[in-house]
């Protein structure tokens, strides 16, 4: 079956989610990937949305984090203070799954503003739940299309902390989660270097090239010596993804 680069990205992101873990899901690409994982290899994945729906099992993709479908299908529904204070802050969620408007070489995310804060070029929606998700979830996955506008050397505003300026910063800030584990794009997958914390290209999707990844990155992208090429989406994965999209 032929497929688009967006489908490849969504399938690659879904594959990283392990069955039986709890995942805090942002709307958009993360929600699509998490719901795909639940329909393929991870039926026991626990989806948590910041509207307070814990263990949501939607039949269709929600347009918003608080769609009624999520409440109807959830194990339980709790208030917003409870979501953040009882579930996110103590580290009860394994994976925080985020999108980004900008991301930098240390996995810091900007969803606040492009240009100066007081004289913005583009005012973005802001932080929402992301700062605490990035701080407290066991690890963080980011799914985002790769381009030089998105992959910048340093984000213009740190909305959510990845590795700050490098090793030791998370500990210094008292952040309990391990930080970004995978950044999954339409070209490949980046992972932090174990020594420097810098995002490094570790995987290409079939048909993508290192040159293409470099051109889509606003810093001098490091490439892992163990760079490999991932698997194309299977027919079953594509069928599940398309059914999910069609239902939503």
């Amino acid at each position, binding site marked *: 079956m032929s497929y688009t680069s967006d489908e490849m990205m969504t399938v690659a992101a879904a594959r990283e989610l392990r069955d039986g873990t709890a995942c805090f899901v942002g*709307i*958009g690409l993360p929600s699509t990937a998490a719901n795909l994982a639940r329909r393929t290899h991870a039926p026991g994945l626990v989806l948590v949305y*910041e*509207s*307070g*729906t814990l263990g949501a099992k939607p039949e269709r993709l*929600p*347009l*918003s*984090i*608080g*769609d*009624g479908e*999520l*409440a109807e299908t959830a194990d339980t*529904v*709790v*208030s*917003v*203070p409870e*979501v*953040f*204070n009882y579930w*996110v*802050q103590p580290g009860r969620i394994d994976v925080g799954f985020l999108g980004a408007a900008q991301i930098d070489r240390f996995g810091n995310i900007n969803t*606040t503003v492009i240009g100066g*804060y007081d004289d*913005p*070029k*583009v*005012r*973005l*929606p*802001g*932080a*929402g*739940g*992301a*700062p*605490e998700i990035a*701080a*407290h979830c066991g690890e963080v996955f980011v799914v985002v299309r790769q381009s030089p506008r998105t992959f910048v050397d340093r984000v213009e*505003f*740190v*909305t*959510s*902390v990845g590795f*700050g300026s490098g090793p030791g*910063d*998370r500990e210094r*800030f*008292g*952040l*309990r989660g391990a930080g970004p584990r995978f950044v999954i794009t339409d070209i490949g997958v980046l992972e932090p270097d174990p020594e420097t914390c810098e995002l490094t290209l570790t995987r290409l999707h079939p048909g993508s090239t290192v040159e293409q990844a470099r051109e889509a990155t606003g810093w001098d992208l490091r490439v892992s010596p163990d760079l490999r090429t991932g698997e194309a989406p299977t027919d079953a994965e594509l069928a599940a993804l398309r059914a999910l999209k069609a239902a939503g």
Partner: protein
Amino acid sequence: MAEIVSLDEAVGELIHDGDEVALEGFTHLIPVAAGHEIIRQGRRGLTLVRMTPDIVYDQLIGAGCARKLVFSWGGNPGVGSLHRFRDAVQNSWPVPLEIEEHSHAGMANRYVAGASGLPFAVLRGYRGTDLPAHTANIKPITCPFTGEELTAVPALNPDVGVVHAQRADRRGNVQLWGIPGIQKEVVLASKRSLVTVEEIVDELEERPGAITIPSWVITKVAEAPGGARPSYAHGYYERDNDAYRAWDAVGRDRERFRSWLTTEMGVGA
């Protein structure tokens, strides 16, 4: 005891120019009818507070009701940006909009502190982000027991808290179910409160997962059937996703927005 009045009376009596007003709702039960009544009555200089300002806040900002926004995520959920909000921040149209920006956890805890009668809340959060540098209401605090550095945010006690719920009885006890959001905290944190409801009934039936907010902590209750549209009221009607998508084109363009204000709200901008 809550007084049961019409929506226009409630807004007229409770909300004054310059007030700090929180209309809350987390996707579910957004008090849209109350927001539109504020636009119709032409309030000015409001400090609008909300975790997730969405299209009704875009409308209030575009109509020139607000001078300040206190928030944690301002967007059209699942669709994109709020263009009236953007225009106000980037171009001061129709009036300049001051912003005070938090995370959801920060805002939620500010309401909890307000509802709890405490001056501030403490949380693990914000550290390492650029938010504290731009928001005076985020400060470091040291735990007196462990010495750990944490974050403090001040209590929110809006002049008026406005929420929507499914039902009230004739004494003004309010019943709300589905996603509870931050609604109970807002009513308890605010100096005055307005709850709009889908319907007023003789007796409240038990509902799974429902919370009841007793009449004696609410100032006024107003019946507003469909008052959360295009958001939704669990058990009454579903979220109108098409209306959220359609708002994008109206909000994007000042002229289209002006004509929306005239035709839908009966006011000029």
